[in-house]
């Protein structure tokens, strides 16, 4: 496939971008969660 | 005169008096903008090019100087907590907004006159009678927009350490339409690249819309913004 690099790159950026965001988000949230017990979280 | 206008006049007078006595704009900001104009010439290194892009350079210099002027305008307020005192005294925030914007506008107009003169001298720009009328109108309308946006976002970025660096990031994207409109008008005024002076007048419409929108919305948004 011609230009495969760019096409693949686009999808890596897309999925990788979302994954990186999610991982960073969960890492931060996990740290905060150790301080706030589940009883005090309104969505649980 | 309504209370809001009275407040505005008092604050504008205060800001201008502070400037008159300290001469910060004349001694620091004007030289800075002149320097920017000279640096442009160094960077572009070509008389033909600088003559062609002179309008853009003038308004870029205005934008950069605006950031400095706004920081100065609020440094005056936050030095002794003056803005907080003003706010808590129950004064109409719209009055404060208009007052500071008017003072800022006066300083901007002086700046633009000087920069246009410098463009004629440094970049060999030329300007006729109709061009001058066009430029003056553009400068006036653009200044209303610049002063409104500067006062508004300056209020947000005022005071607390670390916020001043935010000001250019917030303000410059918003001012893109003013840059585009004012530059096109000035191109016509200077007759750059055979552009007819008459081509410039429609761009005033853009500047006018911007000016109206941001002066009106600015007055409303100012209260919540400085309400700390």
């Amino acid at each position, binding site marked *: 496939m011609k*230009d495969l690099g760019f096409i693949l790159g686009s999808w890596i950026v897309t999925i990788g971008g*979302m994954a990186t*965001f999610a991982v960073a988000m969960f890492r931060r949230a996990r740290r905060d*969660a150790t301080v706030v017990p*589940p009883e005090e979280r309104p969505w649980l | 005169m309504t209370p809001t206008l009275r407040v505005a006049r008092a604050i504008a007078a205060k800001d201008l008096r502070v400037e008159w006595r300290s001469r910060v704009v004349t001694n620091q900001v004007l030289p800075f903008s002149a320097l920017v104009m000279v640096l442009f010439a160094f960077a572009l290194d070509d008389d033909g090019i600088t003559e062609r892009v002179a309008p853009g350079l003038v308004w870029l210099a205005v934008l950069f100087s605006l950031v400095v002027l706004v920081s100065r305008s609020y440094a005056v307020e936050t030095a002794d907590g003056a803005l907080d005192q003003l706010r808590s005294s129950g004064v109409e925030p719209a009055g404060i907004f208009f007052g500071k914007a008017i003072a800022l506008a006066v300083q901007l107009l002086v700046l633009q006159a000087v920069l246009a003169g410098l463009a004629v001298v440094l970049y060999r720009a030329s300007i006729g009678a109709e061009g001058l009328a066009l430029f003056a109108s553009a400068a006036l309308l653009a200044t209303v927009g610049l002063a409104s946006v500067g006062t508004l976002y300056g209020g947000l970025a005022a005071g607390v350490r670390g*916020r001043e660096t935010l000001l250019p*990031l*917030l303000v410059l994207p918003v001012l893109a339409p003013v840059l585009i409109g004012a530059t096109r008008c000035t191109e016509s005024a200077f007759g750059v690249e055979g552009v007819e002076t008459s081509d410039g007048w429609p761009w005033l419409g853009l500047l006018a819309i911007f000016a109206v929108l941001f002066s009106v919305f600015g007055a409303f948004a100012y209260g919540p913004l400085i309400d700390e």
Partner: protein
Amino acid sequence: MTDSTAQKPREAARRDPVTGTRFTRVLGVACLAGLVWLFVFAFFVTPADVNQGESVRIMYAHVPGAWLAYLAFVVTAFSSAMYLWRRTRSLTWDRLAGASAEVGVLFMAISLVTGSLWGRITWGTFWTWDARLTTTAFLFITYVGYLAVRGLGGSHHQRARRSAVLALLAVLEIPLVHFSVVLWNSLHQEASVAGNTDVTMDGLMLFTLFLGVVVFTLSYVWLVLHRQRALHLRDLVDETGLDRALEARRAEAASS
């Protein structure tokens, strides 16, 4: 402290759902499955385009990304208005605005990068100053500025008020920027650069595009839900962090 007593809190932490609920778990699985489905279709199942060739495969990520970014910013503006409007000034609206803006910036970045790569294939350049692209770039910078303002500090309500006003001003500013850039561009008549980008989409390609929009929307919802809860956790920690730390120290002192 021996190993066994130290392990219990760690195990508990690992089992802690943090910001997850059953709904988000189901949604998360759906998103993952959808993304795989989309990827497979984009790369293997759909044909190349008559005009664009293989580069159309990027469109299945680029177009949904752009749409979701705009949706995200609309949600941010709406939540900001809700925060300012309600007498109760609920911080949930503020956190929703913030979370949506973050995800919006993410999707906008994805959209800009994929669009740039697509342009590189189709037009040979990574960037062109056409009206849509330029306005998109401005939108991106504006919301980066918004996120910077959110990080300024101060009380939660100060943050909420500042960013709410900013979000509403952004909604005012974007059409102005778009309008001026379009006018500016009309001077240059660079329409020819756009070339023939018409995609005569057959049914399968249209379906894949639609699938892309659906999958991206689900991903947006999943990301925003989690991020909003994460922000809530952050705010709770801010409010009570010191008290909890003191309590924990006291409990330690009492038990030792």
